[in-house]
Structure formats: C-alpha cells, structure tokens
C-alpha cells in the first residue's frame, strides 16, 4: 500500500511539473496570432510552420549545432581533468587540500556579469573570439569545480580497501584507475556528465559575449530573434521545445549508469 502511495505522489508531481512544458509544446504548434488571441487547452488547428522555419533557416539550426559542439567539448574537458583531481581529494591529504577544494567552488559564487569584460579581453588577445573552444574553456570556470565536487562525493563512497587491494595485486595507478575505479563510480560519472552538459547548455551570458556568428549558441539566437521582430511566441516555444531534445538524449544515455549504482562485487 505504502509503495503505491509513493508512486501516486510521484506521478502527480511529474504531471504538474510537465504542465509548463506542455504549454510550451501547445504554443509551438500555434501561430502567434492564435496564441495571443484566445485561450486553448490544445491547438485546434496545429501548424508545424514554426518547426519548419527552425529546420530550414541556417541562422536557427546552426545555433543548435554550435551549442552542441561547445557543450560536448566542455563536458569532455571537465570530466577528464576532474576525474584525477577528485580522486586526489577523496584519497590523499596534501598541502592545502581543504582550501583548494573549497576555493574551486568559490568560482561559482561571483555574479556572472563580472566575468564578461575580462573574458572578452582575454579571449580577444589570444584570438579565440567566436570559436567553440573559447566558450568550452570559459564554461570550465563553473563546470570543473562542480564536476570535482560531485565526483569526490561518489569516490569517497568507495571503500579505500579496494584501492589498497588493487595496489597489492600489482595494478599500476593508471591501470587501476581506468579498469577498476572508473567502473565503480559509473553512477557518479553519469550524473556529472549530465550536469556539465546541462549547465553549459543553458548558460547564455558568457556564450553570447564570446561569440558573434560562427559559434553563436541557440539561446542567443532565440533572444536576438525575439528583440528584432517583436515577440514571436510560437517560434520561441518551438525553439524551446527543441533545446530540450539534446539534453534529454544525454540523460537517456546515462540513465543506466545512474540506476545501476554500486557494484561492489566487481573487484
């Protein structure tokens, strides 16, 4: 009985949570005049014109491609530098470890607007303005600390005896790390990858400041179109629906890592 009550609660929550997204979907299938004209539970005369526009105009679909490129680069960089660092924090005591660990997180604490001008000057100087790599590296500022923190939490959950046994068995550190340790924290890696992807995907200020045309992200395309033509709600809603898709695919791929959890019997 208890289990069922929980499930009902969960379904209720998810149902309510989906309402704004349903409304966005509803708007995306209507024309601007129709949206502003009258209240309608569902589109009486659904049109795919908004989606067609996004898929056929390069200014629109290139935004998705650009965002996907720099977000993927960012997630790869963040994970590959954060994994060894998180291991160091979870296993070793070294000079300044606690300060360093907390300092990392302080980089998420400043108002993002603070970084705009200095970043623009920095990346102009090295000639990286309007490249995907510039946005990917600038997003490391908030994603790397987060990745280290989340991974450290998962790694500390793995008993240290596993490391010791592996070293006694003659594993070298890189081999132990890749073949024994990483599989043990798959859940953590999955969650971290998703969060890096997500925070980089929705970030607008830095991405917009560091790009002009070649690497312009989708979120910036959306605001600019909005300001140029007045508000085209239907088009904006369609673009919004499409921004959800890549991230939903990512979580679909990592869902098993999150669900399987801890496999202690592996060693």
């Amino acid at each position, binding site marked *: 009985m208890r289990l069922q009550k*929980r*499930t009902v609660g*969960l379904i209720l*929550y*998810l149902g309510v949570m989906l*309402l*704004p*997204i349903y*409304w966005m979907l509803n*708007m995306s299938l209507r024309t601007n005049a129709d*949206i502003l004209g009258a*209240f309608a539970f569902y589109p009486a005369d659904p049109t795919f014109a908004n989606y067609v526009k996004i898929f056929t105009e390069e200014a629109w679909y290139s935004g998705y491609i650009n965002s996907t490129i720099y977000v993927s680069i960012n997630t790869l960089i963040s994970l590959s*530098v954060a994994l060894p*660092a998180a291991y*160091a*924090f979870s*296993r*070793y005591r*070294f*000079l300044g470890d606690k300060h360093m660990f907390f300092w990392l997180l302080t*980089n*998420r*604490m*400043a*108002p993002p*607007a*603070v*970084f705009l*001008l*200095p*970043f623009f000057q920095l990346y102009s100087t090295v000639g990286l303005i309007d490249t995907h790599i510039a946005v990917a*590296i600038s997003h*490391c*500022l908030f994603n*790397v*600390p*987060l990745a280290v*923190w989340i991974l450290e*939490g*998962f790694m*500390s*959950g793995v008993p240290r005896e596993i490391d010791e046994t592996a070293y006694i068995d003659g594993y070298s550190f890189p081999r132990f790390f890749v073949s024994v340790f990483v599989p043990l924290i798959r859940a*953590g890696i999955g*969650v971290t990858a998703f969060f890096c992807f997500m925070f980089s*995907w*929705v970030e607008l200020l830095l991405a917009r400041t560091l790009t002009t045309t070649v690497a312009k992200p989708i*979120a910036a395309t959306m*605001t600019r179109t909005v300001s140029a033509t007045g508000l085209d*709600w239907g088009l904006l*809603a369609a*673009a*919004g629906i499409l921004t*959800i898709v890549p*991230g*939903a695919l990512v979580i679909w791929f990592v869902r098993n890592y*999150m*669900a399987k*959890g*801890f496999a*202690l019997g592996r060693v």
Partner: protein
Amino acid sequence: MGKWEDNKAWFLVLPVFLLVAISAIIPLMTVVNYSVQDIFGPGDRIFVGTEWFEDMLSNRRLHDALWRQFLFSGLVLLIEIPLGVLIALAMPKRGWGVSVSLVLLALPLLIPWNVIGTIWIIFTRPDIGLLGVAINGLGFEFDHTSAPLDAWITVMLMEVWHWTPLVALLAYAGLRAIPEAYFQAARIDGASPWAVFRYIQLPKMRGVLTIAVLLRFMDSFLIYAEPFVLTGGGPGNSTTFLSIYLVKLSTAMDVGPAAAFSIIYFLIILLFSWLFYQALQNVGTGDRQ
C-alpha cells in the same frame, strides 16, 4: 581511517588548478581594480580607496534587495531540498519507470534560463495562460504584474519547478550508490522505513546533499534571468533581487560602485556557503561517531 598523506597528489589536481585559475584570477584582478577607482575615461582615473564600498554598505535599496534575496534563497532551500529528497525516495529502483522518471525530471533543467522566463510570462497570463486561467477560474484574483505577493508566488513557483529536479537527481544518484547489503541488514534487523531513512539513507546521502544545498544556495542567490524576464524586478521593486539590482546599478552608474558591490556580493555568498559547508560536514561526523 585517515587519508594517505602524499603531496604528489598535487599532480592530479594541477590541471584543474591551472584551468580554473586562468579563468578566475584575471577577472578578479579587474574587478578589484575598478572597485577602488573613479574612472572618467581612458587614462583618466583617480584612486578613491574604500569610498565605493562605504557608499554601497549604506545604500538603503541595496539593503532591501539583500533581505529580499535572503528570504528568497531561504525559502528555496526549505522547499527544494526536502521535496527533492522525497521525490528521489519515491522514484522506482528498477524497471522502465526509472528511465521515464529520470528523463522527465531532467526536462525543466534543460531549457535556457531566459526562455524559462518567457514561457512563464504566457503560462501565467490570466487571459491566455494555463496557470493564470486555472487560478482565476478557481475564483482568486491573480496577476503577477500588479500584486507583489502574486509576483513572489509566481517567481517561487517557477524556481521550485525549475530547480527541484536538480536536487532530486542528485539525491537519487546518492541513494542508488548505497550498497544493497545495507538494506538487507536493515531488513534482517526489522528496521522501520523511517529508521532506514534516518540511519542509512540520509547519512549516505550527506555528500550529494551537501552539493545540492550549496548549489541551490549559490545559484538562487545569483538568480537573474528568470525573474528579470518574468517580472522585470517588479511590481515596484518587490522582486528586485540582488543581481537584478546589480545590473540596474551598473547601467545607471559607474563601474566603480558596481565592482565594489560585486565584491560584497561575492563575500556574502562565500561566507554563507562556508557556513553551510562546515555545518553539513559536522552533521556527518556526528553520525559516524
């Protein structure tokens, strides 16, 4: 059992340190530089010492925005953390339900922040939005563009809708990382569900919950795009949170006061994050003893 003592671990941390330091230190220098100068034009500036800081600390509107911000972030933590843990506990452990609920939960997180504000403008409109129509249909006068309380409720709703899934996903991953043996032992001992939660699940979730609390505190304290797009800080100043005020300030005045304000802003977040961090660490060690 203590950690291994070895300064060579620095080599593992070095890439992270370099990558983040390059991005962090240059902006920091710039802001500190601006905060102590009055800039009239290129090459024409005077050193003003702590004048901007004194200005900012005695600014009444900044105080108002600060209290508003504390109230907002406090409510965010009080609502989102317990709700997120409840959702995580209610989620299925295996089967197709796992995939479905994980993917659905992630959806609000994936929408760019400015778009969230825009969608909620329509969603809450009393004439053509689902929520606005529903609330007015129930007989309440609801209009977030004129009533401060309604604006607050709308912004809170949007915030809880948007970010509770983050807490739920973290808590769920934390729950899944608990070895099955713990639950088997608890079953043999005949432990109640509450005891299982209190003595197994909650302590084991300490790590992920620390991250969840810190993340939600920092990000809600820095919240800008969503309320700005939805309410523009109004009606009046009722939803002008700190970062909205900071942007108003920096467009209306010099970079000097805005830079001083940014530093104060940062120090407040730093202080409270540190307090939360220490408190959560100590809760954990208390359990272990």
